[in-house]
């Protein structure tokens, strides 16, 4: 069994009062709670803090923890002192955890008298735990739907409510209809309920991988469409990529930069039916190196054209004074 320093996790001394523990926990929980913090690793950090507080706030569990000794380093393999289990655990099954190898300290303390699922499990129906997992999908996965093997580390309870974390693989089918930030509920795929309690659910939080071309907004997609100045001025038919394959798009003459051209139903499928749209945002791109002939032609246009792209500056100046 690996040692964890619960006092260090909360940033308090070993003789901290219950009030100090609570204060330290609240401060850290507000900072690292995964539903608030966007920092990487916030969930793991919060779990450490919560596990430490759940153990130390209970006087019996704190006494049991303190008896493990303070000479261990975090992560170090250790065994509780002889008699520790008899002193702090009650019931006929005492001794079951004589083999501490592979047991997580949190599971051990969750099973101690003084609270936890074990204390009440035998008396009433308890719903299974819900699991919540973030799943990263490509836009192509979102378009067609996909299947994922989710490897979870979940608590499993014995008849007395003693927990042990075990690996579990769930094969989750993700139907088409996903988009960034969307949630999928997989009913009954969470933890097992006890005494007739319903099985928990699995919630998937969808995060889309960035795509080199398309940017999702809900079920719509946005694409930058570079056009040559003459394509924008004269109009053209250009090939535009979509998730389902390239299509031809007609560019109207006199198309301005920034104009959005809509390709209906070329976005992501919506869960309720139908599809989002694809918007091509026009960018007018000039050649960076001009041949002599191109220079000549641009020069001719400059001489012949009366177009003034900054005409509104002068109008604004006149009105301003």
């Amino acid at each position: 069994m690996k040692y964890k320093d619960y006092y260090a996790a909360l940033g308090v001394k070993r003789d901290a009062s219950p009030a100090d523990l609570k204060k330290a926990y609240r401060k850290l929980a507000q900072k690292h709670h995964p539903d608030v913090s966007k920092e990487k690793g916030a969930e793991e950090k919060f779990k450490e803090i919560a596990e430490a507080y759940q153990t130390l706030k209970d006087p019996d569990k704190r006494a049991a923890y303190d008896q493990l000794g303070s000479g261990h380093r975090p992560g170090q393999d250790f065994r509780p002192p002889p008699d520790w289990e008899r002193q702090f655990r009650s019931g006929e099954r005492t001794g079951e955890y004589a083999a501490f190898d592979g047991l997580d300290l949190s599971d051990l303390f969750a099973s101690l008298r003084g609270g936890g699922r074990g204390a009440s499990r035998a008396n009433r129906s308890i719903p299974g735990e819900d699991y919540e997992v973030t799943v990263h999908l490509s836009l192509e996965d979102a378009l067609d739907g996909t299947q994922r093997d989710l490897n979870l580390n979940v608590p499993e309870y014995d008849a007395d409510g003693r927990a042990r974390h075990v690996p579990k693989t769930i094969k989750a089918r993700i139907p088409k209809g996903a988009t960034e930030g969307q949630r999928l509920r997989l009913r009954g795929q969470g933890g097992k309920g006890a005494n007739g309690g319903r099985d928990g659910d699995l919630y998937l939080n969808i995060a889309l991988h960035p795509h080199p071309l398309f940017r999702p907004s809900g079920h719509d997609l946005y694409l930058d469409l570079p056009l040559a100045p003459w394509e924008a001025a004269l109009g053209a038919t250009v090939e535009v990529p979509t998730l389902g394959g390239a299509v031809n798009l007609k560019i109207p003459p006199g198309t301005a930069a920034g104009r959005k051209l809509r390709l209906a139903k070329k976005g992501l499928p919506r869960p309720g039916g139908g599809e989002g749209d694809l918007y091509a945002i026009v960018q007018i791109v000039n050649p960076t190196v001009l041949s002599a002939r191109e220079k000549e032609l641009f020069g001719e246009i400059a001489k012949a054209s009366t177009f003034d792209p900054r005409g509104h500056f002068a109008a604004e100046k006149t009105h301003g004074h």
Partner: protein
Amino acid sequence: MAIERDDAVWLHAEHRVTIVELAECSGLAEEVVRELVDYGALSPLDPVAGVLDFNARCVARVRAAVRLSQDLELDTPALALVVSFLERIDELETRLREMNAKLPR
């Protein structure tokens, strides 16, 4: 061993959940869900009809608020406030994503 099942439901804006489902998903008692409605933190889809159905998007928000209230030992008024703030954050993040998508690179 891999378990395979297929009870997948997208919690999107066009899907609605009943008060019973919302209570089940969030672990709240139905009375507390009603209190959240009274506080204005949750808006039923058909308030006039007297049926408490909600937009399914609120499920994730309420679940997050319940986790926060349990972990930070908050009472029901504070829970209602958290639900409202999370809704505001959801809206702002959605708008930010929309604006970012529309900006040319």
